[in-house]
């Protein structure tokens, strides 16, 4: 048994067979073979080696011809490894003695070698692990033939393990069979994390290198509550986690009846609970949990999933789907919130050394007006079909907000001229997530219909902590007193001016902070669909008066850890079933 510690980015526990995803998403379907099949399997191995041999030899000849003998020689080395008598003995040994399938045996042995290489001191030698993976991949390809599976079309449940997953890879994952994922790199708040949350599957990132320790088909436990990944778990551990999964299922079942009840505190304050979504299909769960609407509809997937820039129709169809499903309840669409490096048809900035401080989000859309207009037109057209709100992300200055609003008015005029229907009174809001805007919020509130506090970015900017840098990611926390002070003052600024305000960051979906935020005066929460009922449970179990007392207590404390443990104690007192 081996336990890895990473960063928990999506809660829950998954127990399942590992699928190690590389660029080709090769999957090992079967780990063991019957005793009487062993001879047959060894022949399959020989055939695979012969097939790989042909390929590598052809590569060697082509490369030698085109680039010279010096480059061709590396394939000569691959051939020598492929036919290494020792390697062959080791693989055959696992097939004969352990009755491993050739696929599993090849993967086990090759990964063991890759691991040794990676542990070598010389950087040049470390790199040789990629040569091993290359040979492994070739052998597996020949062994699996047509049976190799793509991650977007799985046939049985798996947990995905990868070095890194691109946003489009995560977006295309098979939703029925993907039970969780782990990446060696990445950080909380990264796109991978958001997609995991959207899919309601546990995810752990930034575990550091471990893929060489795993072969496809191994049983793996992902503990998304504590950021742990357990390889080769023993029986006792498996039993303990199975129990936890069961308990969670029971809790979810117990919370289910809350779906049809309003979120009202014990002393009678009605709280509005909205869902955060990324994909139209998530609306279903929002409705099933009785959400009052969509507080944050992220539109990035429309851009990330596509090979070309999405058309107005693509936007419109997605928005329409969400609106119709929400049947008259409000849907808040956030305009594009991505960096230039993630977009295909926008020129990449030449010197983007610090993307989170760079050309992204509203800064990017204001510079690429046609791209922005396409989205705004689609949003406005959809506004004729239901209750839409539009929200601009990453606003830093009043000038930016005014420019964005002006553009929106401009698009409205176009639609008017063309006699296309839209909601003239569409509500316009902004994300309060850049400290500059949060500090200056009293001037912004006069120019917007609502404010949504994006704690994910706000915390990162206030604490100057990059969430995806695993050396500092642990410093990233909502419970830092400085962050809380800023949050309290922005909520109160909005309340004073009668501007509706909600929090849509991960913080608002964490039951640990619900009482504190209620105590600050927050009356609207926008949370991941999976958290709706838990948050509602807290709201229905407490009084505002209690929460105000808790908030006052918290504000006297001076460090994050103390605040967290105090909040946990208070939550345990009020809603014990939510504190494990």
């Amino acid at each position, binding site marked *: 048994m081996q336990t890895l510690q990473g960063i928990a980015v999506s809660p829950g526990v998954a127990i399942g067979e590992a699928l190690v995803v590389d660029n080709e998403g090769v999957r090992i379907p079967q780990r063991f073979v019957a005793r009487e099949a062993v001879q047959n399997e060894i022949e399959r191995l020989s055939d695979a080696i012969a097939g790989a041999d042909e390929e590598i030899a052809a590569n060697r000849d082509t490369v030698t011809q085109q680039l010279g*003998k*010096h480059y061709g*020689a*590396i394939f*000569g*080395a691959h051939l*020598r*490894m492929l036919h*290494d*008598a*020792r*390697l062959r003995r080791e693989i055959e040994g696992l097939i004969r003695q352990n009755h491993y399938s050739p696929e599993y045996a090849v993967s086990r042995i090759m990964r063991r*070698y890759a691991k*040794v*290489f990676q542990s*070598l*001191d*010389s950087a*040049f*030698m470390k790199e*040789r692990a990629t*040569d091993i993976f290359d040979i492994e991949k070739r052998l597996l390809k020949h062994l699996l033939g047509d049976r190799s599976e793509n991650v977007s079309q799985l046939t049985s449940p798996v947990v995905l393990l990868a070095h890194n997953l691109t946003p489009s890879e995560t977006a295309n994952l098979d939703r029925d069979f993907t039970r969780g994922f782990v990446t060696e790199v990445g950080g909380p708040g990264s796109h991978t994390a958001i997609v995991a949350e959207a899919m309601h599957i546990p995810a752990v990132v930034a575990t550091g290198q471990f893929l060489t320790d795993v072969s496809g088909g191994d049983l793996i436990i992902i503990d998304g509550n504590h950021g742990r990944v357990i390889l080769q778990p023993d029986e006792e551990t498996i039993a303990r986690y199975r129990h936890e999964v069961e308990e969670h299922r029971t809790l979810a079942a117990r919370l289910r009846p809350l779906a049809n009840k309003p979120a009202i505190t014990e002393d009678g304050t009605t709280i509005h609970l909205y869902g955060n979504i990324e994909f139209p299909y998530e609306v279903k769960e929002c409705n099933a949990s009785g959400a009052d609407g969509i507080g944050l509809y992220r539109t990035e997937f429309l851009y990330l999933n596509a090979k070309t820039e999405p058309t107005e129709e693509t936007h419109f169809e997605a928005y329409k789907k969400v609106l119709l499903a929400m049947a008259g309840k409000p849907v808040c669409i956030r305009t594009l919130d991505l960096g230039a490096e993630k977009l295909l048809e926008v020129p990449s900035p030449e010197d983007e050394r610090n993307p989170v401080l760079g050309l992204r989000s509203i800064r990017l859309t204001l510079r690429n007006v046609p791209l922005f207009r396409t989205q705004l037109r689609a949003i406005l057209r959809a506004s004729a079909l239901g209750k839409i709100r539009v929200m601009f992300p990453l606003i830093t200055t009043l000038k930016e907000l005014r420019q964005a609003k002006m553009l929106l008015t401009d698009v409205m005029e176009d639609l008017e001229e063309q006699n296309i229907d839209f909601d003239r009174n569409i509500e316009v809001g902004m994300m309060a997530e850049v400290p500059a805007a949060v500090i200056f919020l009293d001037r912004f509130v006069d120019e917007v219909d609502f404010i949504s506090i994006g704690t994910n970015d706000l915390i990162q900017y206030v604490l100057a902590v990059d969430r995806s840098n695993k050396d500092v990611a642990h410093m990233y926390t909502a419970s830092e007193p400085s962050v809380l002070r800023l949050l309290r003052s922005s909520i109160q600024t909005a309340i004073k001016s009668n501007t509706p305000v909600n929090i849509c960051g991960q913080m608002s979906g964490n039951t640990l902070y619900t009482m504190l935020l209620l105590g600050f005066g927050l009356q609207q929460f926008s949370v991941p669909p999976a958290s709706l009922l838990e948050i509602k449970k807290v709201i229905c179990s407490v009084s505002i008066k209690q929460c105000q007392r808790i908030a006052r207590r918290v504000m006297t404390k001076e460090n994050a850890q103390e605040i967290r443990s105090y909040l946990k104690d208070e939550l345990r007192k009020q809603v014990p079933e939510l504190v494990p």
Partner: protein
Amino acid sequence: MPNTENSKVSRCVEITNPQGLHLRPGEVFTRKASEFVSTVSIISGDRRVDGKSLLDIATLGATQGTKLEIEAHGPDAEVAVKVLADILETKSVDELTKGP
């Protein structure tokens, strides 16, 4: 003493290739080593690897300046050690892969 059935010969060498004993020189080494009847081992500190297995050799991660002992055991041990030691003491892979 000339080649007898069980002669065991060994020699110490120092890796001169700037990138160490990586795959390409290793390939040349194992290819040559496999041409001999004798068993060939490379000893580095307390580790002994199969001189005919490229994978095994690569796990040594022998960098420039590493001192290794080549040991051959068998009828052609003496020639084997001489030829193989020469390979390890060659500076550049290109000299080795110039071909016959």
